[in-house]
């Protein structure tokens, strides 16, 4: 039982991957690092695990500096994106492996493994080999191997992103309910923002070199501090409209957006006058028939450019005089290409970013 602290961690090969990354995961906290692929998330995990050596900075587990300690002495458990199950061993032996390494006696091993296996609902598979079980079962087995030895820190590398949607839901539920995971410091890495929002007690959004913003799921989604964060959380991606300040409005080609007094205050004294306006698609809707925009909404006329019905909802991209805006619609709606529509945008939901720095105002 321990907290994980990462201070000023640097790692690079031909180019820097991590550049002074700071991170603290409290004991019992589930911390999710989310970011696009290839940004260095796995490198971070491998450094904490001890599979790579840090160029600079320190990693502290439960007050002990482990930066220069080899992986097998760190008491850190990790699941790999590829599961990394030992193909020549049965599921039982795979799960028992950390206990064997710790020279646990065999009665204790039997007990612990069967506990973990029943917790993960893989008790029927203990005699099989990894080649004979499905992807979801492999992941449970890999998870069992990390859970069994009561490590100080859990590291989970994209554990569910390669699985089918349905098994993803099941395993997400599992992560929510596994007390063992919720008791220690867990560092979970994923490129899927919805996993991050769903699972994380806190989330860190990773950009190049380090974490761009950390906070609770709601903080990050509702108050992104940076264009990068806004773009990386949310599906469909947030509308980012390049605008210029024009008095009390923001103007883009073909559209001008009214601002509330509070929003105008934010713009006071802005130098370049270039603002990236972020609007989440769920704050944009298409008005039906003669419907009038509600309070706090601004209406725009435009024509449908793309319409995607996805079952649970539909996505409509509307061209409002040269500016494209994505709206979320009901699954039953039908729109034709070029159809004239009116979109209502919730003005209170605007996110204003400085175009140059990418920072929120």
């Amino acid at each position, binding site marked *: 039982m321990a907290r994980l602290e990462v201070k000023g961690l640097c790692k690079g090969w031909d180019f820097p991957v991590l550049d002074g990354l700071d991170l603290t995961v409290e004991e019992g906290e589930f911390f999710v690092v989310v970011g696009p692929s290839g940004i260095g998330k796995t490198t971070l995990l491998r450094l904490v*695990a*001890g*599979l790579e050596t840090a160029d600079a900075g320190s990693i502290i587990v439960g007050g002990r500096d482990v930066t220069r300690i*080899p*992986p*097998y002495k*760190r*008491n*850190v*458990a*990790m699941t*790999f994106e*590829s*599961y*990394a*199950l*030992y*193909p*020549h061993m049965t599921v039982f032996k795979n799960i028992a*492996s*950390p206990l*064997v*390494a*710790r020279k646990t006696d065999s009665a204790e091993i039997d007990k612990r493994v069967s506990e973990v296996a029943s917790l993960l609902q893989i008790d029927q598979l203990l005699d099989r080999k*990894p*080649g004979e079980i499905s*992807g979801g079962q492999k992941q449970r087995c890999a998870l069992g*191997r*990390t859970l069994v*030895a009561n490590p100080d820190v859990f590291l989970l590398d994209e554990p569910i992103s*390669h699985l089918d949607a349905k098994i993803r839901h099941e395993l997400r539920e599992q992560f929510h309910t596994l007390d063992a995971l919720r008791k220690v410091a867990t560092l979970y890495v994923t490129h899927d923002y919805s996993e991050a929002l769903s699972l994380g007690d806190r989330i860190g959004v990773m950009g190049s070199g380090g974490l761009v913003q950390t906070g609770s799921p709601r903080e990050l989604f509702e108050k992104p501090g940076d264009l990068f964060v806004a773009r990386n959380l949310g599906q469909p991606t947030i509308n980012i409209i390049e605008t210029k300040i024009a008095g009390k409005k923001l103007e883009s080609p073909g559209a001008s957006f009214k601002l509330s007094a509070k929003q105008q205050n934010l713009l006071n004294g802005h130098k370049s006058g270039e603002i990236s306006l972020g609007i989440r698609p769920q704050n944009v809707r298409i008005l039906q028939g003669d419907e009038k925009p509600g309070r706090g909404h601004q209406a725009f006329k435009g024509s449908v450019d793309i319409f995607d019905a996805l079952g649970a909802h539909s996505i409509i991209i509307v061209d409002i005089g040269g500016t494209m805006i994505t709206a979320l619609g009901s699954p039953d709606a039908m729109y034709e290409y070029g159809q004239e529509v009116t979109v209502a945008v919730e003005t209170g939901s605007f996110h204003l970013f400085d175009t140059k720095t990418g920072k929120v105002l």
Partner: protein
Amino acid sequence: MSEKNYALVKVLLLIFLGIWMLFTLFPLYWQLITAFKSAGETNLTVPTFWPDEWHPENFIAVFADKSNFGALIDSFVIATGNTLASLFLGTLAGYAFARFPRQAGGENLSFWILSNRMFPPVAILIPMFFLFDAMPWGTDSHISLIILYLVFNMPLATWLMMVFFRDAPRELEEAAYLDGFTPLQAFRRVTLPLVLPGMVSVGILCWIFAWNEYLFANLFVGSAVRTFTIVIPTFTNGSQTLWNLQMAFSLIAMIPPVTLFILLRRYMVRGLSLGVVKG
């Protein structure tokens, strides 16, 4: 591909395979029947394709000289000793090349080791003789041939083991480190079982090379130690070559490698590590 073309290709393939079989099986057949012929029958101007008279006693006659049996033992000791040494060194070197290519001298060094295998043996025959003659155990000993054959078998073992280790996912070892195993334990518990089928194949290749080697054996050993390969040409009667005895003895010498192959066949099936990762 239409059905008709498919059938045609199949027929052509069968014909080709038939001819191929003929080429490979004929020498075996010839060896077998010759081993049962009488000395006179082997020297007929018009060869017979089936023995007129069967002489199974040829197989006993080859052991008239008791030390001929010892030659098989000597060969076995040398081949086995060399195989174990090749595997041991080749596995360690192969692992180093696969996992730490930069520290282990990179592509150049590993390729240079393999290139030793391509060197024509005859070119080093004489220098090698003098070199080994200067050793305390001389040339006429088991150990000299065991070491000498390393020149050929170790590069092969190193290179092949390197390929097998490269195929064995590194992540499995890393997973073992995180389980709490030291690198050596991880290597023994995880990596070695994965490359075992490959290792068995390499072992068989090395063993067969050492078992069959004639050129160096002929020059190096002969009195204290005799390999079966240098015994075969000794079956003569004055100027007359006793083909039947030579064939009988070489048939007997074929038994160990064939048995070995049959026993270890199932380990040679590669692909244990397939489907380890993902899938």
